C-alpha cells in the first residue's frame, strides 16, 4: 500500500509541475461551459428583422409593436420598397423581413381575409424555420384576440407543452454533452499520454523490474485522473446550476455515481490505447480520432442519432458517450431514476470491464 501511495504522490507531482497542462485540464470544462452557454447557442433571441409596412394602419402597427415586444425579434429597419428587402438581406443585417400589403386592415375587416408575407434568410434553415414559426405564433395570437367576440363555428386549438425544458434552453442539451466530452478527454487522452510517456522515458521498465505489480502501476496512474475528473464533474455541475440555470432534477448521488462509472470507462479506454501506442503523439492521435470525434458526432449531442442512416446508428451504439449522454439527460433533466437507466448503466459497466480486461491482458502480453 505504501508503494501505491508513493506512486500516486509522484503522479500528482507530475500534474502539479506541469502547470500549463493542469490549468488546461481544470479550466477546460469551465471554458467549454461558458462557450457553449453563451456563444454557441442555437437558441434564437433578438433576431434582427426588417418591416415593409405598405399598409401603415392600426392593425399592422399593433402587430409590429407585438413583434418588437417579444424577446425573439428586434426591428432593425423600416423599409419602403421591395428592392430594399433584398438589399437588407444582402447586407446581412437581418434574418427576416415582414411585409404588410396595402389595404391590410381593410382586407381583414371587409373580406375577412388578409395576408402577411414572411421572408426569411434560409441559408441557415433551422433559424429560418424557427423565426417564421415564432412570427406566425405571434400573429396567430393577435388573430385569436380579435376573434374573441365573434364565435367561429369550429375551432381546434393546439396546446403545446414543452416537457422537461419549458423554456427550450439549449443548455439542457449541451451540459450533458460537455460532461461527456470533458471526462473523455481528461481521462482517456491524459491517461494514455502519461503511461506512454513512462514507456518513452524508460521509467516503465524500472517499474516492471520493481516489486510493484503491473496492475498496481496501472491503477496508480489512473487514480489522479479519476480525482481530477471528479473535480471537473463538480465544476461543470456547479456552473450549469448556478450560471446556466439548468436544474438537477434527479438524484445528484445517482448522477455523480454514473459520471464516475463513465470516467472509469474512459480510463480503461486510455489504458487500452496506452498499451498499443508507442509514442505520446500516437496516443494523442488515437484518442482524438478514435474517441473524441465519434463522441461529438455520434453521441446524439450535436446531431440526433435517430435521423442518421442505419450503419451510423449501429456504430453509435459502441460509442460510450452515447449511453452516458442519455443517462445524464434522463437523470439531470428529466429527473428519472435508476429504474429507467439501468440498461445504459449495465452497458457502460460492461464496456468498462471489457476495455479493462483487454488493456490488462495486452499489458501482460507485452511483458512476456
Amino acid at each position: 500500500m505504501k508503494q501505491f501511495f508513493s506512486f500516486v504522490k509522484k503522479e500528482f507531482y507530475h500534474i502539479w509541475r506541469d502547470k500549463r497542462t493542469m490549468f488546461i485540464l481544470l479550466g477546460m470544462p469551465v471554458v467549454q461551459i461558458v462557450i457553449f452557454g453563451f456563444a454557441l447557442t442555437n437558441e434564437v433571441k433578438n433576431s434582427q428583422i426588417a418591416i415593409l409596412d405598405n399598409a401603415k394602419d392600426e392593425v399592422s402597427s399593433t402587430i409590429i409593436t407585438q413583434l418588437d415586444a417579444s424577446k425573439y425579434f428586434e426591428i432593425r429597419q423600416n423599409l419602403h420598397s421591395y428592392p430594399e428587402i433584398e438589399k437588407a438581406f444582402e447586407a446581412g443585417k437581418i434574418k427576416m423581413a415582414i411585409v404588410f400589403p396595402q389595404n391590410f386592415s381593410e382586407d381583414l375587416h371587409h373580406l375577412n381575409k388578409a395576408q402577411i408575407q414572411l421572408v426569411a434568410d434560409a441559408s441557415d434553415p433551422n433559424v429560418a424555420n424557427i423565426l417564421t414559426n415564432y412570427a406566425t405564433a405571434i400573429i396567430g395570437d393577435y388573430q385569436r384576440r380579435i376573434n374573441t367576440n365573434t364565435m367561429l363555428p369550429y375551432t381546434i386549438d393546439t396546446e403545446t407543452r414543452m416537457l422537461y425544458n419549458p423554456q427550450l434552453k439549449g443548455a439542457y442539451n449541451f451540459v450533458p454533452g460537455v460532461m461527456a466530452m470533458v471526462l473523455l478527454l481528461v481521462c482517456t487522452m491524459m491517461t494514455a499520454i502519461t503511461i506512454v510517456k513512462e514507456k518513452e522515458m524508460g521509467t516503465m521498465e524500472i517499474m516492471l523490474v520493481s516489486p510493484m505489480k503491473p496492475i498496481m502501476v496501472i491503477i496508480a496512474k489512473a487514480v489522479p485522473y479519476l480525482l481530477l475528473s471528479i473535480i471537473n464533474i463538480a465544476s461543470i455541475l456547479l456552473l450549469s446550476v448556478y450560471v446556466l440555470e439548468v436544474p438537477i432534477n434527479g438524484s445528484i448521488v445517482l448522477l455523480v455515481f454514473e459520471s464516475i462509472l463513465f470516467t472509469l470507462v474512459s480510463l480503461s479506454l486510455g489504458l487500452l490505447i496506452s498499451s498499443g501506442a508507442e509514442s505520446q503523439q500516437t496516443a494523442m492521435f488515437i484518442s482524438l480520432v478514435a474517441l473524441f470525434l465519434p463522441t461529438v458526432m455520434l453521441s446524439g449531442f450535436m446531431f440526433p442519432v435517430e435521423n442518421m442512416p442505419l450503419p451510423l446508428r449501429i456504430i453509435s451504439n459502441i460509442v460510450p458517450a452515447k449511453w452516458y449522454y442519455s443517462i445524464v439527460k434522463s437523470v439531470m433533466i428529466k429527473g428519472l431514476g435508476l429504474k429507467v437507466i439501468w440498461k445504459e448503466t449495465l452497458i457502460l459497466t460492461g464496456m468498462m470491464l471489457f476495455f479493462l480486461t483487454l488493456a490488462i491482458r495486452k499489458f501482460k502480453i507485452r511483458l512476456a
Partner: protein
Amino acid sequence: MQAVIKADKLSKHFGHFTAVNKISFEVAPGEIFGFLGANGAGKTTAMRMLCGLSIPTSGTATVAGFDVYKQTEEIKRNIGYMSQKFSLYEDLTVLENIRFYGGIYGLSDRDLQQKSEALITRLNLQNEAKKLVGSLPLGWKQKLSFSVAVLHEPKIVFLDEPTGGVDPVTRRQFWDLIYEVADRGITVFVTTHYMDEAEYCNRVSIMVDGSIEALDTPPKLKQQFSANSMDEVFYELARGAKRSE
C-alpha cells in the same frame, strides 16, 4: 561460496528465432560481471529473463536463490535495475526521485529519510537536493540513477549500458561507485559497449548470436585469444557473428 546468479542451458525462442541459446554461467556474490555482446547478440533478452521480465523457453536459472520461472516476485524484490535509457523523472526533484524509488521498494519512512540523506551527502548533492533532476548534468543524473537503483540494498544490481553518452572522466567516477557497491557485497551485472570498461570487470562473458562464446577474467581472455586488449578479444569473437541489428 553460493552463486547469486546461476544459469544452466537457459534459452529463449521467439517463434523460430532463438534469441538466447543454452547459456550457462554462474556469478559469485560481490562480483562485477561484465555481460558483453554486439547489438542483437541476445544480451537484453538474457538480462530480461534474469530480471523476471521474461519467462525462458527452456533451461533453468536462479537469481538470488529464486527460480526465474516461478519466483519472479521474489527476484524483483532482491534486485536493482538501471537501464540505458535515463530513468529518473526530470520533473521531480532529486529528493523526490529518491523517495519515490525507495517508496516503490517499500522502504520505511525512517529508512528512506536516512538513506536519502546519506546518498545526497555521498554524491555531494546537498545544494541540488531540491532542484529538478532535469536541470542536472547527464553525468550526475547517471550517478544518481545508479545510487537510486541500489538504495534498497539489493543482492544484485543489473546495469544495462549504464554509461552511454558520458565523458571518460564521469565514466571513471561512475565505476568508482560500482566498486563501492561491490565492496558492500552487492553483485554487479553490467552490459557495456566500452571495452575499457570490460577491463574493470572481475569476469567477462561475451555473447555471439545468442550463445556465450567466451567467459573468464579479462587477463585470461586476452591470453586465450593472444590479444593485447579486450577490444581485440571482442573483435575476434564478434567478427564471426551472423546476426546484427
